[in-house]
């Protein structure tokens, strides 16, 4: 079958064994690639209950049929494993040349098993795979390590690597590439570190097999052209996602002082216009013509690549209104290999815990010097950094009080940079995201603002599911960036056409929705198999702060969520998905989605509803 390589590279670090295996074409058609393929592998191969930081966890690196081929923003990869932060399914998406090289090397996915006794890195050049000592690299930051590796292996390779945070198993360590590209929020960097794997370098030299190259190139050219014709294109190229700082503040969703508020008095000091004043260049992923990585000079004179999420979380959420200093924290996170979203949450949580005297350390809101120290302490697990490296849920369980109510996380994964005091559909999107609180599967606030943000309607639930099917389903399995569609209005039909020209398989949007639903139910089954009888619908609740503590500032002062009405939305959500009132897929749903084997296995752990 064209469009896929049809091969997986399996590397066992304990045994230092490498082998390739074919992927059944039925599996590819049912799960496509990326997140779908990764979830399928993890469901089939992981023993339930394994320690995510043990040799028994597996790190999956998966491409999709659009990865690396000509087409808008297709230079992306999915990384996945059982998460050390959440104990459930975890994945992330990263833009990197490694995606292109993986496909050109002849693989759709890599499975990393076992644990090396000593630090190593893996070098892949088509069929040749070397496991090489990384003793001289262990302990170095991601920027320096990538430069050193490229001096050895050449600049024209793709690199995925971890920094000290991953080595030290910080539970929200990420995988980094190209000095600022970061993916795998639920601790995928820690999984890599637990395997003593510092880096993966890939050089692919082959052509990626496609069904109809001429039509593919024609369609891609048209899509690139449409992107550039979008009325917002020029402004996007200036500010990218950084324009959202002003937008979020205006709409009272800018996370401020650990999500107590949705407006920040000093937002103008960290907004897109401030960024433009400090900007010196911009970077992007392979095959992208709307690059969104805005690079500024930080307060220490170094380069730092900014976007909305990291500026909101390391700026307003910790009360820091100085873009240059925010950029320093961001650069450190990228060098050390930390997720900026969870990091901003943890710092905000620590500041609030300090204010409430639940921890001994004194950390004031906006205290840049202390925040900078803490970032390093977290990555190296020094002093209180050792506790903060565990993520807000575990910290709250340790320090007690009512801190779990303002540990801003769902299922253990920290909330990304949108406050939900007055955004019930977005709260549902966080609650039901398949990896914990992340916006990548559904971001519905714009639509909520437009249609009435205080309503709790079935229509909102349907919108969340529609976005999950597209963002979390189509884009995460084809593995291409969603931003051309979601930000610049590129028609979804293009992706169906690109898929057809790549693979020769015709699919309607509805066909694809079914695949997305299959992947969602499979991932939910993974969570339930891990949590067994401990699983409950409360796992799908957003943080209690949004229900109990109203906004005290801004035009929406007094706003908060209503728990009974949220619960009603959650019931509608389950009903539409074919899940029972516990949020567990019904047996009939799994069978309808072609997951009969999953139903059989899951029945061993929990009683399934019909």
């Amino acid at each position, binding site marked *: 079958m064209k469009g896929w390589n049809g091969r997986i590279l399996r590397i066992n670090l304990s045994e230092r064994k490498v082998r390739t295996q074919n992927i059944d074409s039925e599996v590819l058609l049912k799960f496509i690639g990326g997140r779908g393929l990764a979830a399928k592998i993890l469901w089939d191969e992981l023993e339930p209950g394994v320690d995510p930081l043990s040799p028994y966890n597996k790190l999956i690196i998966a491409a999709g049929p659009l990865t690396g081929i000509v087409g808008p923003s297709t230079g992306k990869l999915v990384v996945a494993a059982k998460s050390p932060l959440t104990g459930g399914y975890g994945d992330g998406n990263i833009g990197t040349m490694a995606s292109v090289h993986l496909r050109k090397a002849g693989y759709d996915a890599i499975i990393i098993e076992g644990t090396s006794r000593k630090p190593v890195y893996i070098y892949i050049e088509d069929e040749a795979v070397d496991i090489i000592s990384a003793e001289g690299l262990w302990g170095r930051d991601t920027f320096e390590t990538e430069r050193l590796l490229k001096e050895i292996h050449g600049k024209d390779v793709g690199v995925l690597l971890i920094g000290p945070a991953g080595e030290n198993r910080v539970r929200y360590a990420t995988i980094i590439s190209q000095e600022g590209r970061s993916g795998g929020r639920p601790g995928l960097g820690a999984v890599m570190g637990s395997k003593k794997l510092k880096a993966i370098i890939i050089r692919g030299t082959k052509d990626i097999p496609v069904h109809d190259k001429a039509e593919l190139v024609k369609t891609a050219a048209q899509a690139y052209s449409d992107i550039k014709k979008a009325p917002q294109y*020029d402004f996007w190229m200036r500010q990218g996602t950084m324009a959202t700082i002003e937008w979020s503040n205006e709409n009272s969703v800018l996370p401020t002082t650990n999500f107590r508020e949705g407006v920040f008095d000093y937002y103008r000091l960290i907004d897109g216009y401030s960024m433009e004043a400090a900007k010196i260049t911009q970077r992007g992923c392979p095959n992208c013509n709307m690059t969104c990585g805005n690079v500024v000079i930080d307060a220490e004179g170094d380069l730092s690549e900014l976007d909305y999420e990291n500026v909101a979380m390391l700026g307003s959420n910790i009360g820091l209104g100085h873009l240059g200093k925010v950029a320093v924290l961001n650069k450190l996170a990228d060098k050390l290999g930390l997720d900026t979203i969870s990091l901003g949450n943890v710092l905000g949580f620590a500041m609030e815990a300090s204010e409430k005297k639940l921890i001994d350390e004194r950390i004031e809101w906006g205290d840049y010097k202390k925040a900078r120290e803490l970032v390093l302490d977290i990555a190296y697990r020094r002093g209180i950094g050792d506790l903060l490296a565990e993520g807000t849920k575990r910290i709250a369980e340790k320090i007690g009080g009512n801190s779990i109510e303002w540990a801003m996380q769902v299922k253990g994964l920290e909330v990304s940079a949108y406050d939900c005091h007055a955004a019930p559909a977005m709260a549902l999107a966080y609650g039901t995201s398949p990896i914990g609180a992340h916006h990548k599967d559904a971001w519905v606030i714009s639509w909520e603002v437009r249609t009435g943000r205080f309503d709790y309607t079935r229509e909102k639930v349907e919108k969340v599911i529609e976005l999950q099917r597209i963002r979390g389903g189509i884009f995460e399995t084809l593995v291409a960036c969603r931003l051309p569609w979601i930000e610049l209005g590129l028609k979804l039909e293009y992706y169906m056409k690109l898929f057809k020209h790549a693979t020769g398989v015709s699919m309607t949007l509805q066909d694809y929705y079914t695949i997305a639903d299959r992947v969602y139910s499979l991932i939910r089954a993974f969570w339930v198999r891990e949590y067994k009888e401990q699983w409950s619908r409360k796992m799908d609740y957003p943080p209690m702060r949004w229900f109990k503590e109203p906004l005290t500032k801004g035009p929406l002062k007094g706003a908060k969520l209503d728990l009974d009405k949220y619960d009603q939305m959650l019931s509608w959500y389950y009903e539409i998905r074919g899940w029972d009132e516990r949020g567990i897929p019904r047996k009939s749903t799994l069978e309808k989605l072609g997951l009969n084997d999953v139903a059989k296995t899951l029945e061993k752990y929990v009683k399934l509803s019909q």
Partner: protein
Amino acid sequence: MVKIRALGWIAEKLGFREREIHLDKPVKIIDFLPLLNEISEEHLIILVNNEPADKNTIIKNEDKIVLMPVVSGG
């Protein structure tokens, strides 16, 4: 006075980020911001006094209008 705020690329298109105007009588938004005709509804969110509105919403003095793009949060 009517207070108007425009955000992002909508502000670029209109040529201002903040403006105050006086209306002699209530009129539709489109009547005093004709440049909005060049922006499709699908790209535009209009709030009047924090409530969803459209180009034909009638505005009077003391109203607060926000014009913003449909962003999608990355």
